[in-house]
């Protein structure tokens, strides 16, 4: 499997058809996904029909974009008209989307082929994809390990080279952490650059849809295709987006901050990330040791805000209109509680209950309001830091992919693994994870670059510059 950009060039040159490419992906999925379980479902016939339509456009000289005919896998919380949308939950096991998410409409306008529904933690709640109600995804590098989460299916599908690129969503690291665990590139855009319309809401003030791929260029190309304003999402920022792909070669020496609070996890990862920093220094960048002292408050603040928003957002799954309905319901109240008790998994229940508690009378000020103030504190510290530096470089995760079952019974331990990724969501900043080598066990390690709000193109260009001199091979399987 090649990169999306390479396929794009071959399609343009006429040496490859979209049908051949999509068929090759389907063959890979059939050969590998019995072991990896990156996909919850896929519709081969529909994908090939999209490919044929792309080939017809191209033959008529009417290709829509460089992505025309290139297959993209979609996380199962993003609506594609006529396709299943389960969020890996029994609550939506039989749901079929009646409309396209805006990111999907944008991909259709670009001519991309929408191929398959990727596994995830139920309603995007988790860091290992073990919370899927249907299947556990394996890490292609070591099938006994988790792929990360919640976009674990998207990351594993790309890492196992079943598709060139995929969409995920990132509420607290759900694109970057699985990208890191699976040795691929994952990007969370600035909050508001990508529409959330049609992406099932978990924590609306924190999450963004974003791209995963094996190269920064692929990720930039996919980001450019999905980013847009949107009349259906009032939090999607107005106006045109700066295109990132044409600016990939524009990286210039700058000041890079290394916040001490993000280091101190796995020593091997710290060393790999410091080596990346030294490479930037060798390219003329100035490295600046900085401090973001309130980052250790990010996890509790994040889990209060995210669960509070989840308790509100997930109230819509009520057994009435389009979800699982309990057969034991006898009245208009227990239809809710029985349907939700039956169909939500353990982590989703835990988070809804936590969110309900922190919002409930008598506790609102102590938890939710206080967490929002801590969020302001963290955002202010980033603002101050970005007066001193242009980019911030950190590990993506304090550890590499852990064994399946390793943390699933200890929710707090699972939450603490998100320490390096949640600050970008709280502050709304663009952040990318890309590979920076493998450890002694042969597992990939990820480095994260955060940028100023709306400087998505700068973040991508910086990662691209490093990648050009440090190409990283994903093994397939």
């Amino acid at each position: 499997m090649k990169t999306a950009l390479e396929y794009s060039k071959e399609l343009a040159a006429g040496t490859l058809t979209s049908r051949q490419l999509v068929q090759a992906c389907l063959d890979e999925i059939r050969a590998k996904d019995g072991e990896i379980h990156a996909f919850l479902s896929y519709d081969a016939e529909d994908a090939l029909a999209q490919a044929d339509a792309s080939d017809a456009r191209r033959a008529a000289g009417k290709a829509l974009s460089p992505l025309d005919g290139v297959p993209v896998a979609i996380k199962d919380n993003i609506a594609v008209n006529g396709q299943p949308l389960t969020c890996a939950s029994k609550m939506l096991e039989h749901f079929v989307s009646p409309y396209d998410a805006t990111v999907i409409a944008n991909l259709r306008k670009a001519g991309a082929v929408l191929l398959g529904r990727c596994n995830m933690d139920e309603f995007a709640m988790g860091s290992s994809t073990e919370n899927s109600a249907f299947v556990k995804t394996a890490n292609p590098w070591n099938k006994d390990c988790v792929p990360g989460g919640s976009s674990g299916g998207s990351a594993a599908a790309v890492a196992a080279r079943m598709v060139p690129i995929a969409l995920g969503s990132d509420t607290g690291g759900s694109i970057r952490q699985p990208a890191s665990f699976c040795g691929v590139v994952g990007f969370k855009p600035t909050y508001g650059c990508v529409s959330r319309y049609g992406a099932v809401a978990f924590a609306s003030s924190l999450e963004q849809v974003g791209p995963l791929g094996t190269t920064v260029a692929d990720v930039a190309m996919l980001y450019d295709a999905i980013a847009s304003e949107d009349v259906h999402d009032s939090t999607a920022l107005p106006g045109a987006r700066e295109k990132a792909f044409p600016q990939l070669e524009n990286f210039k020496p700058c000041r890079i901050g290394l916040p001490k609070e993000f280091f101190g996890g796995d020593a091997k990862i710290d060393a790999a990330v410091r080596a990346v920093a030294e490479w930037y220094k060798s390219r003329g960048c100035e490295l600046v040791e900085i401090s973001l002292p309130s980052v250790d408050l990010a996890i509790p603040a994040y889990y209060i805000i995210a669960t509070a928003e989840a308790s509100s957002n997930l109230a819509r799954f009520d057994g009435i209109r389009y979800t699982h309905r309990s057969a034991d319901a006898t009245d208009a109240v227990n239809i809710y509680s029985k349907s939700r008790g039956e169909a939500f998994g353990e982590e989703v229940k835990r988070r809804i209950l936590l969110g309900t508690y922190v919002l409930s009378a008598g506790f609102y000020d102590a938890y939710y309001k206080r967490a929002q103030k801590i969020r302001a504190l963290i955002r202010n510290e980033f603002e101050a830091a970005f007066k001193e530096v242009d980019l911030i470089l950190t590990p993506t995760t304090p550890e590499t992919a852990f064994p399946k079952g390793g943390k699933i019974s200890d929710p707090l331990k699972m939450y603490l693994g998100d320490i390096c990724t949640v600050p970008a969501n709280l502050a709304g900043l663009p952040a990318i994870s890309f590979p920076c080598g493998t450890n002694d066990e042969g597992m990939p390690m990820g480095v994260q670059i955060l940028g100023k709000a709306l400087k998505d193109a700068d973040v991508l260009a910086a990662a691209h510059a490093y990648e050009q001199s440090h190409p990283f091979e994903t093994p397939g399987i």
Partner: protein
Amino acid sequence: MSDLKIDLDHVAALARIELSAEEKVKFSGDFQTILGFFEKLGAVDVSRLEPCAHAFPVYNVLREDVPAETLPIEALEKNAPAFRDGQIVVPRIVDDNA
């Protein structure tokens, strides 16, 4: 904060989630740990901070008030757990004798 008193039944009722006996035991233990961890925020002086609901707040976002396509009833019928005569069937909420 090792002795948090949480009325899990009350929270579950507010959240409209029926819990099994096993879940109640499990979640009670989890909440002690997790809410205990949240207490870390209590030590921070937040008196000079304003709550931040969104990283980049936007206000009064309006769009043109023009008619647009809505979903056809057939699309909704497909996903409804119970459907009859163009309507979603729900449990009776008004007593015949009321």
